[in-house]
């Protein structure tokens, strides 16, 4: 595990301030939020839970899809592959950096909610737990997509975005699930963002679609699926 931590620390030093990571991890969710908020009549404070959810998703899944293709190109990735650490440590180390990054970034909408809109938080502990699991889930998703053996950041990013962007619309973030057609509600069930968003919503309002316990279990299942698949792919693509 010390190897995983070393990898995460290295990523923090190098990638946290890279422009393309800031754009896709911070600016993007912010603009999404603003465009929704402006078109809505709801008081902006009630949109804070959704903003936190998509901020977590975008920032957590933005580090590895940038860092890993770059490191393949400059061959530093080979260092990680040839170090005496397990593939599991390597994959978790990569996810760890996205995880910590997004928790840091998500403090921004959290603070805006508290300071600007005075959005009340009903269950602070559940909020913390929901943010942690949502962040880890999407960090692992980022690592999973970065397994695709390319040296081109854009390739991974565009694959990732074809998954990430639709998730915003089908996960009840800005459009409540109850307002969606049945087919949309079915699709929502296979989106991890649905459960992350639902649990964050619960922490803020005390109301949610599922129980927080179910949300957290679903997030754990997604994390396991992503992690195992990522492990398998990194092994497979490593000829």
């Amino acid at each position, binding site marked *: 595990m010390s190897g995983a931590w*070393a990898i995460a620390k290295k990523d923090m030093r*190098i990638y946290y301030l890279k422009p393309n990571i800031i754009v896709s991890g911070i600016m993007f969710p912010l603009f999404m939020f603003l465009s929704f908020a402006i078109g809505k009549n709801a008081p902006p404070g009630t949109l804070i839970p959704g903003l936190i959810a998509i901020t977590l998703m975008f920032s957590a899944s933005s580090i590895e899809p940038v860092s890993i293709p770059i490191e393949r190109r400059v061959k530093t990735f*080979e*260092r990680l592959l040839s170090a*005496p*650490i397990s593939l599991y440590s390597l994959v978790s180390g990569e996810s760890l950096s996205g995880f910590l990054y997004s928790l840091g970034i998500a403090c921004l909408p959290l603070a805006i909610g508290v300071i600007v809109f005075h959005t009340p938080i009903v269950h602070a502990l559940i909020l913390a737990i929901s943010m942690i699991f949502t962040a880890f889930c999407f960090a692992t998703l980022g690592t999973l997509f970065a397994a695709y053996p390319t040296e081109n950041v854009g390739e991974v990013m565009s694959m990732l975005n074809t998954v990430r962007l639709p998730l915003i619309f089908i996960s009840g973030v800005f459009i409540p699930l109850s307002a969606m057609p049945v087919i949309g509600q079915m699709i929502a069930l296979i989106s991890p963002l649905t459960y992350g968003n639902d649990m964050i919503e619960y922490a803020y309002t005390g109301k949610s679609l599922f129980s927080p316990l179910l949300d957290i279990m679903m997030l754990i299942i997604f994390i396991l699926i992503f992690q195992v698949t990522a492990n398998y792919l990194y092994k497979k693509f490593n000829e």
Partner: protein
Amino acid sequence: MKAIEVSHLIKKFGSLTALNDISFSVGEGETFGFLGPNGAGKTTTIRILTGVSRPTSGTATIFGHDVEHDTIAARQSVGIVSENSNVYDDLTAWQNLMFSAELYHVGRKEREEKATELLKKFELYDRSNDKVHGFSKGMKRRLTLAMGMVNSPRLIFLDEPTSGLDVQSNLIIREVVSDLVRAGVTVFLTTHNIEEANVMCDRVAIINKGNIVAIDAPESLKKTIQSVQSIEVAFDRNSTDHLDELSHLPMVNDVRKAGDKFKIFTEFPSEVIDVLVAYAHLHNLKILSITTLGPSLEDVFVRLTGLQRAGDGIHAID
């Protein structure tokens, strides 16, 4: 126990056979050279030995640990210096070393001492806290070597460590490698430079297109190499009749016609020049040009494998 034991290794990339059934072993404390031109399979061998790439068939062990099935144990006491200077440009020299040490589970105090020692050794100490992206090629290469040594390995892989470097960096690197050898570290070094293999290695394997052509001590290799020093001479009348006569001159190993010149292979170029002058005199020939050529990797291969030259895909690099 052998430091490296390789048995019938085959590596295919699609239809390309990068390693064609190679076997060799390297004893502990030995400096083993892997000499071959670009594309010979040197890096592929190292990548398999360090568990980054998987062999198509065959086995390899490092200090008795199978590289495929006991990978982490096999890697622990190994240092790897890849052919690209793969350092992190956005980190300082110090941070690069710390990161490398942490990947190898070196404790804090130990890694800080080791990093300081290595930075001094590689003459990078006063640049410790500078980001690497301002470093010259030679400095990056030296840092790459330092990163490969920060876990005090028992075996170190050096993939073309001095290729394309400035003289100062070359000297430092060679000195550090001899220090390693004195300290009993096993060194596996790849190069396409004959002279480097000769100077630095106890034994040298010559590899070409995935085949090991010969494994020998440098002394006997040197004999082969010396025998392919050559003289190129052009006379005013270049009849092929000379070919036979020239090849019977003393100290001449072989003669080939190369364009309008004769290429004469010998261990003793300066003596043979005298002989040629006398020969020209005797036959009333004028020497239009005469040049001595050092041994080329290509000539060594031809000598060792008895291949004929032209178009067989061997490229001399030096």
